[in-house]
Structures are given as C-alpha cells and as structure tokens.
C-alpha cells in the first residue's frame, strides 16, 4: 500500500473513532469533551469516561479484529467470499453467549456472557480442527466450518425455541443482533487482549499468504508449513473474532466487505491486505456504530449487527456485480 493511502486510512480511523466518541443526537458530548480537556467534571464528562470511551475503543477493536480476520481467511482460502463466519467462530461464540443467557448466568456476573461466548468460540474451533484433521485441504476446512456453524446455529435455534417466556427469547434475539450500546471498561479489559492477540498472530503469519496464491502445493515448495499456517489462521481468527462476538454479538459483513474494498490498494497481495483491513474494519465499524445512534428512534434502538447487514448486503451485491468475470 502506498504511504499516502495508508496515511489516509489512519486518518479515517482517527476521525471515525472520534466521531464514535463524540457524536450523539443531542450534541451534548462535544461540550463535554471540552470540559474533559479543561479538567472540569460534568454529567457529560462522566458519560464520556464511563460509557463512550470504552464504546469507542471496543468499536475500533472489534472492527479491526473482523477486518484482519476477513483478510487472513480470504487469503488463506484464496477466495474473496471467505469471511469470519466461515470457520464457524461467529456461530459457536454466539451459541456460547446464548447458553449463558438461557441459563441466566448473566445474573451471576456481567462478564459471564462474554466469557461464555469466548469459550463457545474456542470449543467451536477445537471441534473444527478435530473434524478437519491435521492434513485438511482448504475445501475440507471450509466444509468443517460450515458443519460447525450448522451445529451451533441449530443449538441456538433450539435454545430460543425452548425459551420459557417471550422476554427470555427477546433477550437472546437482541443479543444476537449485535450491539455496543452496553460497552464498559470491564468488557474492554476482557476483549482487548483476545482481539489483540488474535490480530497479532494473523499479522505475524501474513507473509505466508502470498505464496499460497499459487496453490497449496507450490506454497509448500516455497517453504510454507501449511499445518502450522492453518492452525495460526484458525486460532488467530477465533481470538480476533471470538473476542469481538463476546462483547458485541454477531456483526456481519465487516470481515467480508473491508478486504474487498481495500484489495485494489495493495495490488491484490493477500499479505499486504492484512493491516489495512484491520484499520479499515476499525473505521467502518466505528462509523456504523455512530450510525446506530443517529438512526435510533426514541425507545427503538437500531442494532449494530442489523445496520452492518443492511449496509453490507446491498454493497456486497454491487461488489459481486462489478467484479464479475475478473480475477479479484
């Protein structure tokens, strides 16, 4: 990526995160930010410190994890349609959270839901690796991911079916729509290490994605240790995405769309796409979170996962149409 593009992207991330920090429907927080800088305390500064800062940080982190893992998975599978959902992490993390909600574990501690989601993601990945075996090809891995997703989704549906009352069902349904509205510092402390560890792992192995453009056998002939790379990609994605799902719920399309958008700027090199996709994901998710606040009506919150899907799906249709018949 050319340095001016990179600078523009970093600038965009900063603007998006600032917007996520300060934009609200009543414009109250701009003044509060001034108070905060002057060291004065007010209701606004407390909202900023306790709610908005963790929300802005989580938004950027969750987006970065989704973007990086989308780029890594597309590179690994040599397929522009791969996204974090494909290895089954999103669905199994979701199932973990739904189990915690169903059994009312949130009453024990607010961190029970993220912990259950992270555990669910980990179990899902373990199941995936067992199912696919050590020498699995990309195709086997994709099929195993689809299988893990199917099992997790069916279990989630079963628990929703068995919900004792409409409120319990609504709680699960809302959680699955994805939101950062309840972000707090505990969630940041919980999710940040997971997402950062996963993203770092993906960044470290990214150079092996370029030889993989020539197929698995040629990549091996160029010194790529495929079983290790597969493990690093799956675990890295599980941490980067699972950490995000744990605190924000399932948020689709970021991991799919962002690498697509940025691919032309890195001359289609899968290794070079990873960091820009992390930045792009951070910017896009932060802006989407701003959008949920501006578009929410009184008493009717617009959920983040719903907004990203609403924006992402038509955009993806356009992308598919515009890249038809060309190598990506």
């Amino acid at each position, binding site marked *: 990526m050319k340095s001016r593009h990179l600078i523009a992207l970093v600038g965009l991330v900063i603007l998006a995160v600032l917007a996520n920090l300060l934009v609200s429907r009543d414009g109250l927080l701009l003044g509060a930010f001034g108070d905060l800088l002057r060291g004065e305390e007010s209701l606004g500064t407390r909202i900023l410190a306790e709610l908005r800062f963790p929300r802005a940080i989580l938004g950027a982190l969750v987006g970065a994890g989704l973007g990086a893992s989308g780029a890594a998975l597309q590179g690994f599978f*040599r397929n522009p349609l791969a996204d974090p959902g494909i290895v089954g992490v999103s669905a199994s993390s979701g199932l973990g959270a739904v189990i915690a909600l169903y059994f009312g574990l949130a009453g024990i501690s607010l961190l029970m839901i993220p912990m259950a989601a992270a555990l669910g993601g980990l179990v899902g990945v373990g199941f995936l690796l067992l199912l696919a075996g050590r020498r699995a090809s990309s195709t086997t891995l994709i099929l195993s991911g689809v299988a893990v997703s199917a099992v997790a989704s069916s279990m989630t549906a079963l628990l929703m079916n068995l919900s004792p009352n409409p409120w319990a069902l609504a709680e699960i349904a809302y959680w699955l729509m994805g939101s950062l509205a309840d972000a707090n510092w505990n969630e940041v402390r919980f999710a940040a290490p997971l997402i950062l560890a996963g993203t770092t792992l993906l960044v470290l192995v990214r*150079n092996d994605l370029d030889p993989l453009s*020539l197929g698995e056998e*040629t990549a091996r002939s160029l*010194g790529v240790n495929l079983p290790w790379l597969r493990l690093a990609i799956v675990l890295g994605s599980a941490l980067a995405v699972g950490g995000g799902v744990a605190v924000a719920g399932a948020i689709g399309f970021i991991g799919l769309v962002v690498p697509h958008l940025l691919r032309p700027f890195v001359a289609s*090199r*899968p290794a070079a796409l990873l960091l820009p996709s992390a930045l792009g994901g951070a910017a896009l998710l932060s802006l989407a979170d701003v959008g949920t606040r501006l578009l929410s009506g009184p008493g009717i919150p617009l959920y983040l996962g719903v907004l990203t899907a609403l924006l992402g799906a038509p955009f993806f249709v356009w992308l598919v149409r515009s890249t038809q018949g060309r190598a990506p």
Partner: protein
Amino acid sequence: MSQLELSGLCAQYDGAPVLHEASLSAGAGQVVALVGPNGAGKSTLLRCAGGLLAPSQGQALLDGQAITALADRGRARRIAYLAADTSVAWSLEVERLVALGRAPFLQPLRRMSTEDEAAITSAMEAADITHLTGRRVDSLSSGERARVHLARVLATGADLILLDEPIAALDPRHQLRVMEIVRASARQGAIVVMAIHALDLAVRYADHVVVMDEGRVRAQGSAHEALTAELLADVFGIAVDGGLKPSAARLID
C-alpha cells in the same frame, strides 16, 4: 556441485501405488527429461524429488542429504518447483509473482534484501519478461504467463529445479523460448528435472532422458539409448518413421 540421487523410490496416494522402484541420478548442469504417457508417474517423481511427497520406500537425496529431512525453508531455498497447475488466486502484478520465488529467504516483518531484488531482476531478464513489469498476471497470454512462472522459479536461485510440463499448451515459439531458458539455467549450474511431452524437444535439450510408464522407469540414458523404436511403440503406442529426431526449429528474432 550439486548431486541428485533418487534410488528405489516407491510412492502411493491413498494406498494406491503410483511409483515403483524409480531411480535416477543427475548432477549440476544437467537437464533431465521425464517422458511418458499421462499417469506414468512423472509428477509423482517430481513431488518426491521436491520433498512434497514422502516416498513409502527408497531414498531421495540431494548432496547426500535426505530431501524429506530438510527443514521447510532450507529445502525451499535449494529446490524450486513449478507445478503443472499454474493458476493464481489473485490478480497479482508480474514482479510480485516473480518475487514469490524469494519467499524462502524473507525474514518475518523485514523488507526484501538487495540480494532478493537482484535475483528478481536477473530472473526477469533471463525469462525475458522485464517489459511485463506492472502488468497483472491474469491479463497475460499463456506464453507470457509460462515465462513469468519460470522467472519465479529462477528467482529462487535453487540448486535443483523441478518443472512439471512447463511447455504444455504453448505455441512452438514459446516452447522453444522456455526450453532455451531452461537450458541456460542448467548452464549456470542448476540440476533441471522436467516432465515433458514434446519428445523432439526432449531429444534436443535434455542430457538425460527417463522414460516412464505405469509408475516404473522403463529406460533411461541419452535420448538415443532411452527412446528406442521398441520402447516408443510399447510405451507410447507410436511409430516414428526414420527414428526420433531432435526438433529442428529455431527462434527468429
């Protein structure tokens, strides 16, 4: 001086034997042609020689060391491999694809060294693709693309170069150009082992011809020793009136 020794190699896919007791030795500067009908075991032999497939019996040695015992990156620096399937997943730029030949030398989080850059430049010159710099591989003709992949293989600067049908689907002129590049890299000290269907080109360019059929080496030696009329009839089911002659085609500027 490098030396490749394959002795008594047997290999199988999913329990089905595809290679029986194949042996072959080649030294630096030699071009070895593997000929034989489809399914004869040529690709399998190349994979064993490249350390990509562990033989079930027998040994593959490069300078006395077992190839499967070499570490991944160390092996990749010494052995370059061009698969028959040269599809590229992304719309990469030509020089980026050639640069992949230097992947075994890259250090994590570091940029390419000047040595890497020099190897890429000279490989692109050797394959005569310098003018394609900046082009996307999916916009090239098959002939251009074949030379780009060959440049990727040359950029590694490997002691052993394994090519699986590098001239399949090329026009006569491009076939000759590729063979000339192959010959030149052997002159620089590499061992080249290639699977090839064009017998007249094998006769002309190879120092050593290995005739394979149904997983076995049927004959090997100089082209005249190996490609006898009986063997041509038996292995390929063809008769060549007046005997097999080297290709007489030459490049015109």
